């Protein structure tokens, strides 16, 4: 594939901005880890060797305890199975993930009550929350949900916002006027309250929450796109396309959109961090996804309620901080890379 020399230049410029470039690498690794979280953080074993056969329980259906010769019908507790195999010394073995706890699994102890502090010996590297669930597991799986949430939200918001924005700018006139008023009215709806009201009546699932957020989220992009389109549509290449008889649709999406891409791209990372913050704050307030879905907002809430269990608040706040800083650095670097003026500085 041959890239446009301008694009190559932008990529080079982006790579030259070290802070942003490394942030992108870190962010990619974070997403990568979260996508394969089941292999790293799970109460299901990676490999079980039992009576001459090898099993991979990570993905797929649950295997009842009776399958491995235990006396129960529910899902095998692989940590116990491993201990059992070790004491039996029968040649069977189990390989567990690095963090051998699930995202929903509660791990209690005798005579003491959660939250439990971090312990390397028990492989609760960041401790547990107030019902004994592993914090690493909650953080990683929570991150996966948050990032998926904000990426899908971004996609929907931008599709709607950009389409309407460029249409307003391109056609102008009554259509523009009408939509401006609609958007002004719409943007005056206090959307956080609306979401709170909706989710106190029906508990939204993941996609519903995305859609509710999108209903109010597309507005921001329209203004920018409208202005840019007004500017672009007077340019010669648009006039040329019109002269050649291109349809409006073709002009908008084939000629106009690619020329405004720099603006869209620079806004995107900030929208991602906005999405994460929105989901987290909704969860914090208790109006987000239904428990026991792993969520950062819920962890912040727990940290606040259990100040003496410092490990909860510290883990989740540092994770939040790192994620948002990384995304912001990427955003800054992208903006700079796409900036036609070469000497922009950020303070």
């Amino acid at each position, binding site marked *: 594939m041959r890239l446009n020399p301008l694009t190559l230049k932008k990529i080079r410029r982006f790579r030259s901005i070290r802070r942003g470039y490394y942030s992108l690498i870190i962010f990619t690794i974070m997403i990568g880890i979260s996508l394969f979280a089941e292999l790293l953080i799970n109460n299901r074993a990676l490999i079980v060797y039992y009576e001459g056969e090898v099993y991979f329980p990570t993905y797929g*259906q*649950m295997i*009842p305890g009776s399958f491995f010769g235990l006396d*129960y*019908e*529910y*899902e095998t507790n692989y940590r116990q199975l491993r201990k059992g195999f070790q004491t039996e010394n029968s040649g069977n073995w189990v390989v567990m993930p690095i963090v051998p706890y699930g995202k*929903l*699994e*509660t791990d*209690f102890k005798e005579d003491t*009550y*959660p939250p439990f502090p971090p312990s390397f010996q028990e492989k609760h590297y960041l401790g547990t929350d*107030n*019902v*004994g*669930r592993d914090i690493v597991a909650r953080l990683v799986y929570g991150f996966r949900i948050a990032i998926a949430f904000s990426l899908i939200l971004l996609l929907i918001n931008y599709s709607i916002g950009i389409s309407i924005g460029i249409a307003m700018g391109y056609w102008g006139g009554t259509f523009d006027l009408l939509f401006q008023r609609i958007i002004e009215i719409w943007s005056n709806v206090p959307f956080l309250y609306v979401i709170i009201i909706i989710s*106190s*009546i*029906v*508990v939204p699932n993941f996609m519903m929450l995305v859609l509710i957020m999108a209903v109010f989220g597309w507005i921001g992009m329209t203004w920018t796109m409208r202005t840019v389109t007004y500017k672009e549509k007077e340019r010669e290449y648009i006039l040329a396309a019109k002269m050649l008889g291109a349809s409006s649709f073709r002009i908008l999406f084939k000629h106009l959109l690619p020329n405004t891409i720099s603006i869209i791209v620079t806004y995107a990372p900030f929208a991602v961090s906005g999405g994460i913050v929105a989901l987290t704050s909704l969860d914090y307030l*208790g109006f987000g996804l*239904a*428990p*026991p879905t792993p969520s950062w907002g819920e962890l912040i809430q727990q940290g606040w309620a259990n100040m*003496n269990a410092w490990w909860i608040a510290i883990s989740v706040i540092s994770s939040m901080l790192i994620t948002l800083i990384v995304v912001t650095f990427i955003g800054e670097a992208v903006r700079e890379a796409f900036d036609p003026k070469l000497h922009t500085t950020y303070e």
Partner: protein
Amino acid sequence: MTIYNRILLFGVWICLVLLSVYQPDQAIGNTVLPENIKWLTNTKDPVFASDKAKKGGTFHASILSFPMTFRVIGPDSNGSFRSAILDNQLSLIGIHPNTENIIPELATHWAFGDDKKTMYFKLNKSARWSDGEPVTSDDFLFAVEFMRSKEIVAPWYNDYYTKEIDRVIVYDDHTLAVVATKAQPDLHLRVGLSPIPRHFYGKLDKDFVRKYNWKIVPNTGPYQISDFQKGKYIHFKRKQDWWAKDLHYFKNRFNVDKVVFSVVRDTNILWEYFKKGKEDVFSLVMPDYWHEKSRTPVIENGYVHKIWFFNDTQQSAMGMWLNQDREIFQDRNVRYAFAHAMNIEKVIKNVLRDDYFRLEHGFVGYGRYSNPDIKARRFDLDKVDQYMKASGWSRGPDGLWSKGGKKFSVEVTYSFDEHTPRLVVLKEEAKKAGMELRLQRLDSSATFKKFLEKNHDVAWMGWSTSLRPQFWEHFHSVNAHKSQTNNITNTDDPEMDQLIDAFRNSLEEEERIQLSRKIQSRIHEIGCFVPTFMVPYVRQAYWRWWKLPEVPGTKMSGDLFSPFGSTTGGLLWYDPDLFAETKQAMKAGKTFQPVTIVDETYKMKE
């Protein structure tokens, strides 16, 4: 004015006067006491105050917000401070907190009419309002007039005093009868009215609500408001020559001279105030306060004592209510299996620190009306297996039970964020039993609406209690399969209906007790309710100069240090010597043995 006109006017005036005197339904009419009346009284039951009690001292209590009005009726009157005012208002009769027998308050004697809807009372002749006026039968007549009047803007009371109370009959200044609209068991709970001073209110007008916002109404109890500053504090002073102070059940009670309620808007701040000695008592019911936060110098140095007192009173029916209109719960085996899949014991042990107790059924703590033989179904995977298989379910590849392509997955709806940890553990344990619980937390009014409209699978909630068990609302088929009724399990069982009807129609205590127990067994057999927790105790911290009787409370005590309340309040007293000793010790850095009292006198037997 001609003489004619004068005569005419005079005539009209005479007619008006006659009309106003003649009140056909109440005052005049049957004003002769029936002859066969058997007057009863009760000064035989054991007293529960201590004869070591001394008068004196100031008790510092707190309120979370200043009341919006001192009225106890009408708009904005239903705040929490209302009870402090009402607790200083006596009724005709009271209930002994340990024996539940009737005891005298404003009336010295009472009698039951043969029609089972009339009760006669003889008032205590020394009974006085706080302004010195005597309490007379007319004040009870006025109470009903007052409660029925439109001026007080209290539709619920208008309705209640019309539908439940038929009338008050005055025989003389100190003898009266109260008639209920229908014959009923436990009539005394219905007709033991509280008087309202006619001489104070006079004629009610449209201005009532505004006019009486901050008026201090004369009362008959041991304390009266002496001073207040809006938004800051309210002071109550003990009446030095209170008319009832030597009555059998009031002796040695209500000892504190002055009670100060100051506004403290936050529990954490209240805790700090308490530790500084600015408040006298602090509630430690919450596990984190009792176990963690109370590890603080004032308690460890023995200046503040802790008390854990078990009471024996009606327990809220807290648990999981299964909607039997849902296809999955129409099968009794499935309901049983569901109950056996709930690991309530694990929640109590690991989440609630063994501080809560297992509720065995929905009507615990109703004395003889409770059936002690019912035991809630315990977590038992074998029984789940047995019941599910009996109904033709089998475990699918994901470990959940399934039948005809449908998975066992039900929604559990609840409203308190604090309950999430409990439900999370239940969910994980239920997974082992092959059942999926989908947790749904809604805002509390949305939750209740959902339950009343019967749109839930499983309702996680508790009902408030009353002195006698209420079955009809919750389990009679009349209330099933329709919205806005309390039968949220949609129980529709002919045998149950029969029992409940018999219970409601019976006027014999013994029969009612037997029926009540039978109904409870039937509920257990139907298995539509999975009982969860109860908290049959009160836990408090208090400065050591406060003293309580040897048995520090009663079966019904909800707050051991409640300064008012004719049933259980006012048992505490102030010891000035201990106060001086403690203050000196604190100054000198001397410490005492830390004290934690656990009183199990009334603990419910398991």
